[in-house]
């Protein structure tokens, strides 16, 4: 699953998942039906999912595995220059790019060259957060530091829930949904507060999960 040469990297998440797809096909050819031998109860089915785009693929053979991987590739940023997925939905990367460029994509457009209607973006309403913030940036401001640490702990707990959900306890996915809203509130608390000593920047969550885990163990 690693690039063939050490100095190569996956150019995009789409490429990475495409490589996963290739690996899966390889294993399926080699092992046939015996590859998918796990307990189907460990899978997350449509009963654990609601709202949003896309749909749930229960993976039971190479075809369903490929369908699931294609969904991820298409939703994320596409691959090979395609900006729409098979369901004709614009990939997330290009949706964000629409905002940056202030212009909609149209079917048939090339990447980075939308030709649709233009729209105004109120950049004054965007929060001027610090890029790649670290908890150590908040050493001088106890309130920011404690909010950032709280967020990282919530985020670590959330990832733990997701891991458990995808590792045999699908019902945990339901617990994870309200946690996402808590995460949003925790992020906004930081993003709306100014970072003293900066050039009019606001604070931001740091996502330092390893730090959160360390802190919990001690």
């Amino acid at each position: 699953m690693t690039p063939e040469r050490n100095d190569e990297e996956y150019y995009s998440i789409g490429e990475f998942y495409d490589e996963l797809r290739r690996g899966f096909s390889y294993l399926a050819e080699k092992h046939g039906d015996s590859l998918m031998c796990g307990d189907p109860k460990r899978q997350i089915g449509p009963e654990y999912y609601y709202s949003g785009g896309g749909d749930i693929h229960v993976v039971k053979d190479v075809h369903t595995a490929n369908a699931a991987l294609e969904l991820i590739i298409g939703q994320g940023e596409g691959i090979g220059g395609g900006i729409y997925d098979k369901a004709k939905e614009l990939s997330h990367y290009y949706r964000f790019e629409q905002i940056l460029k202030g212009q909609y994509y149209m079917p048939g457009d090339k990447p980075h060259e939308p030709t649709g209607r233009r729209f105004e973006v109120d950049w004054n309403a965007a929060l001027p957060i610090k890029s790649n913030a670290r908890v150590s940036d908040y050493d001088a401001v106890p309130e920011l530091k404690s909010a950032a640490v709280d967020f990282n702990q919530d985020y670590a707990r959330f990832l733990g829930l997701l891991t458990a959900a995808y590792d045999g306890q699908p019902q945990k996915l339901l617990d994870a949904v309200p946690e996402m809203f808590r995460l949003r509130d925790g992020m906004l608390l930081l993003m709306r507060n100014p970072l003293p000593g900066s050039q009019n920047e606001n604070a931001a969550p740091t996502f330092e999960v390893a730090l959160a885990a360390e802190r919990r163990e001690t």
Partner: protein
Amino acid sequence: MRDTFLALSAEITAFKVFELEGTGLTDAYLQAVEGVVGRESVNLLLDKYREIPDGEPGRRDSLRRVIFGDQRLGPIARNLVKLWYLGIWYQLPREWRDAYGARRRT
């Protein structure tokens, strides 16, 4: 003005400025209060608040006397507390509207 509004809000709601700022509603609320009671009343409220000397003993009493006990400022301050907690602006008492209302009918 925004800072004083936040400081007053924090003191009378017992939230921290940090928490109030984190709601993202400060500007909307300041604008809402100004829109209802008028800039003059808001300025008076914030001026009086700024004049209250720091430090106990006495600050709590001063707040009560200068802000909450004041015919004009008290109802605004009480409404501001409710606004932060509930997100609702309650109609001010009729006496207040008659005496100070920004949009009182003539």
